[in-house]
C-alpha cells in the first residue's frame, strides 16, 4: 500500500531460542488509529520495543517515512517523529508536570521551535493545566497517564505508540484519554495503540491487528477483526456484543 507512514516487514525477535515475534508485517496510514490486540504474551509491547529501538530485531525491517529504523538508537528514532507512551506510566517523579513536558519539548522533534510554547500546548491539550506546577509523583493515576501522553505530544510526533493508555483507569478517566487520542488523530498524528479494553479499541480504531503467540492472525476494520473466528477463539472468547460497536464516533 503506498503512502504509509510506517512499514513493518517480516519483523522477528527471539529471546534465548523462544520466538516471540514471528515474521509480522503491517503498514500504518497517516492520520489513522490502529490498535494491536491479543492475549498477554502475544508480543504487543515487544513490537513497540522493536520499533523504538529498545530491542534489536533479529530479522525484518521497520521503515518510517522512508527511513529504516533498524540501526538507529532510540533517541534518534524519537527525533524522527516517533513518540511512545509507556504501559506503566513513567513520569520523572521529582520534576514538575511542566518540567516533565518541557524536557520532551526541548529534545524531541520540537527542538527547532519555541519549546515553552510546545510544552504549554501539550499540557493544555491533555487537560493538565491545573496541575502543571505539581511534582509528577503527586499526580493521580489518571493524570499520570495524561502526563505520559502530554510528554509524548511535546516531542511533536508524527506517530504515537501508546501502550495500554487506559489500563487502570476508571470510566471517566478512560473517556478523557480516548478524547485525547481522537484529538490527536484529528490533528493528523498517526496512533498505534496497544489496548486490552475492547470498548476502547472499537471506539477509536480505524484498523485492528490481532496477535497470538507472536504471529499476526487477523488484520482489518474493527468489525472484521472482532468477528474473525480465529480472533474469537484466541482472544475474545465470545463474539462482542452489539453495544461495543455503537459507541464509535462518526
Amino acid at each position: 500500500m503506498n503512502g504509509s507512514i510506517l512499514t513493518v516487514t517480516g519483523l522477528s525477535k527471539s529471546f534465548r531460542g523462544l520466538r516471540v515475534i514471528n515474521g509480522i508485517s503491517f503498514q500504518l496510514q497517516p492520520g489513522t488509529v490502529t490498535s494491536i490486540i491479543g492475549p498477554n504474551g502475544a508480543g504487543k509491547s515487544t513490537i513497540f520495543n522493536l520499533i523504538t529501538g529498545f530491542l534489536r530485531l533479529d530479522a525484518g525491517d521497520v521503515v518510517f517515512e522512508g527511513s529504516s529504523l533498524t540501526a538507529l538508537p532510540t533517541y534518534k528514532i524519537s527525533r524522527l517523529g516517533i513518540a511512545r507512551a509507556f504501559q506503566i506510566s513513567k513520569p520523572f517523579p521529582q520534576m514538575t508536570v511542566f518540567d516533565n513536558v518541557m524536557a520532551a519539548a526541548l529534545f524531541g522533534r520540537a527542538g527547532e521551535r519555541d519549546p515553552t510554547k510546545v510544552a504549554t500546548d501539550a499540557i493544555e491539550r491533555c487537560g493538565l493545566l491545573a496541575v502543571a506546577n505539581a511534582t509528577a509523583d503527586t499526580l493521580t493515576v489518571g493524570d499520570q497517564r495524561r502526563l505520559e501522553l502530554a510528554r509524548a505530544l511535546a516531542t511533536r510526533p508524527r506517530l504515537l505508540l501508546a501502550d495500554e493508555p487506559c489500563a487502570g483507569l476508571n470510566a471517566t478517566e478512560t473517556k478523557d484519554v480516548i478524547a485525547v487520542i481522537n484529538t490527536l488523530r484529528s490533528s493528523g498524528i498517526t496512533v498505534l495503540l496497544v489496548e486490552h479494553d475492547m470498548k476502547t479499541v472499537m471506539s477509536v480504531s480505524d484498523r485492528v491487528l490481532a496477535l497470538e503467540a507472536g504471529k499476526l492472525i487477523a488484520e482489518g476494520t474493527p468489525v472484521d477483526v472482532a468477528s474473525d473466528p480465529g480472533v474469537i477463539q484466541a482472544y475474545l472468547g465470545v463474539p462482542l456484543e452489539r453495544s461495543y460497536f455503537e459507541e464509535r464516533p462518526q
Partner: protein
Amino acid sequence: MTGLDRLDLRSKITGNIGAWIAVGVIALVVMAAAPAILTPFQMRVGMSIFFSAGLAVAWGLLGGYAGYYSFGHTAFLGIGAFTGALLSNYLHAVSPLVVFGLSILAAVAVCGVLAALIAYPVLRLRHSYFAIVMLGIAYVAAEVINNFDWFQGSIGIVVPQVVPRGMRPEMFFYYALLAAAAICVVVTALLVSGRVGYALMTIREDEDTAKMLGIATERYKILAFVVSAMLTSLVGVVYAFSIGFITTGAVFRTDFSLNMIVCSLIGGIGTIVGPVFGAIILTVLTQVVLADALSFRLATTGALIVIIVLLAPSGVLGLVRGAAARIRQ
C-alpha cells in the same frame, strides 16, 4: 483570557536563576572580604569549607544531577594533585604563579582526557555497579601512583612554594580554594541551568524514558562525567599546593570520596546550593564544634548521615524549601 494566561507556568529547573546569581555574588563578596576579620584558625576552617564545597559540587554534577553515584571520585582528586605536583617540579625557570597556573591547567587537562577515555565503558554501568567500579578505579589509580617510582607516590613529592612574596600562605590558599570552589559552582550552574540540566535530571529519573524523548543520554552522561572529573582535579591540585607535600595516602583518601557524598546528602542532593550548605555544616561541626573531640568526628558524621537520610531525605535545603512552602500557604 485562556487558562495559560492565568497560570504561572514556570520551570523549577530554570526558574530562579537570577535570584541565585544575586545570592552567589553577594556570598562571594562577603567571603572575599572576610579574611580582614578572620583569625588564622577561622581562615583554615574557611579553606576546609571551600575544599569540601568544591568537591561536593563537582561530585554533585554527576551524582546529584545525573544520578550516577561515584564512590571513587578521589581518583580525580589524586591524579590532579600528582599531575600538578610532578609538573611543578619540572618548571624551575618560571615564576611561582605561572607554575601554579600551568600546573592547574595540566592537572585539569590530564583528568579530562583520562575521564573521557574511561567514560564510555564505565557509564554503561548503572546504580551500585557504577559506584563500585569507580571505587575500584580509585584504588587502581592509587596503586599505580604508589608503585611506579616515577610518580613518587609512596615516598611523596614536595610541591614547590607558589605563594607570592609578602603574602601569608593561608591568605593565598584561602583565595585559591575560594576561587576553585567558585569555579565549580559557576561551571556546574551554567551546565545545569539549561538543556544539559534537563537532560541530566531526566537521566537520573528514568534513563530509558529520557532516550524516548530524544535525549542522547550517553553524550550527556559523558559530558557530566568529564566535567565533574576536571572540576574535582582543579580542587585537588590547589589542595596539593596548599599542603606542600603529597603522598598517595594524602590525596587518594576514601574519606574524601565519602565526604563529597555526605556533604551532598546533608545539604540536598541534586542541587548546587545543597552541597555548599552540606560542606559548611559538616566542616563547622567536625572542625569547630568537635574541635577538641577528634575521636567523635567519624561517629558524628555517621550519626548525621543516619538522621538526614531518615528525617530529611532532601537534605537541609529540602527542609528549608518545605518550611518556605508551608509559610507561603
